[in-house]
């Protein structure tokens, strides 16, 4: 696609750099900027010093519903919705800013981020598509990521009532974080 304005091109490059630094996959960049594949590839190598990961993006909504990922996803999505409501941002800028806030918060708690920026982006797209939504927990009133058409009348979140095996696989989860972030 041809880009007419140099100003807009420079803005797009800045955006792409921010996303690459946060660890976004190339597909995210292709979808969110008008820059050509070749330029994005060069930019990626320049910023990260290595070629981007290959392969398809994770496409299932189920990952967001499992216990720990659901907590992380809910935190991110709450932040994103807040930014989206209070500021007039383009969607991708909102995702970048909310993701930065998410990383800060997770690190402040001494945890490893389970949600990659690619997954965060995916999550917002799932919300746009009406496949997932935020539902209020009937106990704590916090809002959590759920499937859109789930029965939500007496929904109780995974933090008020953790599943029996919650946190048991923690050691495994924590060490496989690098595998999750892609």
């Amino acid at each position, binding site marked *: 696609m041809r880009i007419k304005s140099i100003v807009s091109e420079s803005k797009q490059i800045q955006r792409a750099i921010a996303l690459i630094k946060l660890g976004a996959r190339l597909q995210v960049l292709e979808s969110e900027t008008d820059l050509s594949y070749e330029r994005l590839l060069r930019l990626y190598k320049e910023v990260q010093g290595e070629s981007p990961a290959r392969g398809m993006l994770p496409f299932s909504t189920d990952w967001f519903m499992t216990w720990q990922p659901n907590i992380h996803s809910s935190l991110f999505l709450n932040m994103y919705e807040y930014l989206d409501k209070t500021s007039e941002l383009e969607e991708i*800028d909102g995702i970048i*800013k909310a993701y930065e806030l998410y990383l800060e918060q997770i690190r402040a*708690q001494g945890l490893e981020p389970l949600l990659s920026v690619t997954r965060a982006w995916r999550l917002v797209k799932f919300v746009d598509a009406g496949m997932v939504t935020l539902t209020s927990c009937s106990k704590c009133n916090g809002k959590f990521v759920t499937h859109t058409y789930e029965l939500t009348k007496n929904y109780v979140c995974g933090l008020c009532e953790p599943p029996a095996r919650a946190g048991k696989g923690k050691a495994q989860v924590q060490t496989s974080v690098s595998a999750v972030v892609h």
Partner: protein
Amino acid sequence: MSTIAASNEQLLQEIREANLAYLVLAQHMIRADKAQALYRLGVSEEVATIIDQLSPAQLMKIAGSNQLILRFRFDDDMVWSLLTSHSKPKSSATGAAVAGLHANIVMAGQLASLAA
């Protein structure tokens, strides 16, 4: 009498300092990244714009009060108990961290519904 006045004077001094530190920090955050500052501060965009435009003299004037200009952004037991992890003594340190995230989620949700 004089000792009461002196301790009061010190209290007022500390309130002024807290107010000023808060306003300067808020202004700094708003200028660095307004959208993120709205989340961190929990204020509306209108208020953020006003704080952004305050001159140093105005900051001093607003700070010099006998009231704190900031207050708690949550006032329900739920958030408090999550923050202090009084609810359930969880087995591990991860339990405490998860309770922290729980508080974050509840607070962020409350913020968003206030902004709506």
